[in-house]
């Protein structure tokens, strides 16, 4: 599990998140939601150990992630940021291969190639493996980046708005695959994902953390956190949580 203990994070000396204290379960899909500027991406960077805490700490499976060496960190947490850089002439297979860097440090073995093959299969990218990233659609490219995080084979995958700019088909496709990966069982991953699409959060999240103005508002199982009252108060607008064909949906009202 990830234990967040009285965490304060700053950027350029300015506090972005203050006094966050919660726990994220080891398996399942956790959604970070909240209005713009709430500190969701900053929290994700803190969970990845890339932003040293001004106060408090983050324990990932018992390890203080901010004090771990970069190589050790990368074996525990995979982080996919918003709008990753597009390297010219980089193929899908080579991109996913970068996910294995923490394991081989520049000398890939058969085991690493097997992991890349598996990521290609899990994210249905085998037919595109030799295509250059800049020749792919936004959805295919995003799937390739998520596959890279998958190939890293860490217990945790942290994803910052991986659905931005994706149409519903691609967005749903990625969420389905992440949801499957996070099911308890052998090889299950803890998936923490920043989402703006509340419908996707309602449909796929097991656990939800809500943030507002740099503070934790609520953290808990999805049905307890994503209620009509809580979401309307969080976003300061009328939102209703309802059911459609037995699935939770969020509607503006």
């Amino acid at each position, binding site marked *: 599990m990830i234990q967040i203990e009285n965490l304060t994070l700053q950027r350029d000396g300015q506090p972005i998140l203050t006094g966050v204290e919660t726990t994220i379960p080891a398996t399942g899909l956790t959604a970070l939601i909240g209005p713009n500027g709430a500190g969701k991406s900053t929290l994700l*960077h803190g969970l*990845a150990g*890339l932003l040293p805490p001004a106060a408090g700490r983050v324990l990932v499976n018992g390890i203080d992630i901010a004090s771990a*060496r*970069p*190589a*050790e*960190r*990368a*074996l525990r*947490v*995979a*982080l*996919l*940021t918003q709008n*990753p*850089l597009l*390297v*010219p*002439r*980089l193929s899908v297979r*080579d991109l996913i291969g*970068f*996910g294995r*860097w*923490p394991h081989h*440090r*520049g*000398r890939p073995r058969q085991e690493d190639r097997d992991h890349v093959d598996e990521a290609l299969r899990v994210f249905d990218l085998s037919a595109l493996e030799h295509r250059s990233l800049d020749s792919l659609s936004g959805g295919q490219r995003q799937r390739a980046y998520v596959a890279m995080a998958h190939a*890293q084979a860490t217990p945790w995958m942290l994803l910052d708005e991986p659905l931005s700019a994706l149409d519903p088909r691609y967005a749903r496709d990625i969420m389905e695959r992440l949801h499957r990966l996070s099911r308890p069982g052998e090889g299950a991953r803890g998936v923490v994902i920043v989402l703006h699409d509340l419908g996707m959060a309602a449909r796929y999240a097991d656990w939800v953390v809500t943030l507002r103005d740099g503070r934790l508002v609520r953290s808990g199982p999805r049905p307890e956190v994503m209620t009509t009252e809580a979401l309307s108060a969080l976003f300061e607008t009328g939102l209703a949580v309802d059911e459609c064909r037995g699935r939770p949906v969020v509607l503006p009202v």
Partner: protein
Amino acid sequence: MTLRRLGLLSAALALGVALFLFWGLRAPQGFILSLRSTKLAALLLVGGSVGAATVMFQTVTTNRLLTPGIVGFDSLFVLLQTTLVLTLGGAGYAGLPPIPKFLIETACLTGAAMLLFGWVLRRDADDMTKLVLTGVIFGVLMRGLAGFMQRILDPSEFAIVQQASFATFAGVDPLMLAIALPVFLAALALSLWLAPALDVAALGRTAALSLGVDHGRLALATLGLISVLVAVATALAGPMTFLGLLAASLGAAAIRRHEHRLLIPAAALTGALILVAGQFVFERLLGLQSTLAVIVEFFGGLLFLALVLKRRTG
């Protein structure tokens, strides 16, 4: 396929080398060949150094439009020459022993670059944007200072500074090359050793960090190598701001791969090819003694504009 492309680049360079050495060779052949060989070695070394350095600089700054010259190497070189002419006078400057001058210039350029890089990176982890901007500001400052000093030179001394401000391959001392070559080869070998980590760094700082690359340390090591390569090339021939941009862009376009173990040699070969082919056309075919650097800067500038426009419309 990629190795074949690299082979083609090497073959083109070999052809350029052969033409440069043997085209229109007349008696006394031994003497002329030795002169041409010295110039050729300088062309290869400068082209190779600047090409390799630019690929690495573009990777650590994650910007395909930059060259190391932008962070003030060229301005510092011109400032050094201006200071020397101002303090020693034209005759004193011309009488400077070339080897100590070359060594001091190399040390000054490397030292200044490492001071700048170390200072900025220590203060702001690995903020490459700040590093580039600080370098640009220092470059402007040094250019302004050199410009001010040039105004108080007499016209003949000013002409000497002007001549030194453009790269030239005439009068390179073979001993300088003997010193520069092992430095170049060692820096190139280290660059290739760093190549796999540079592949990851090309994804950007955050991505590289999350993949376990110690980005700050890698950036500092790479910038150190860049400083050495560019300092040696600049002290040997003089400043060529856009040569690196041409070499890195054309080299990458020629091999069409992203791996630095291929990009670095391709850019080095392309840089050398541009200089050797350009000098051959200038000297042997056109019989001109004009400075090749001016033409390289012109086409490099055009390529820069083309890349900027392509980005806007792309």
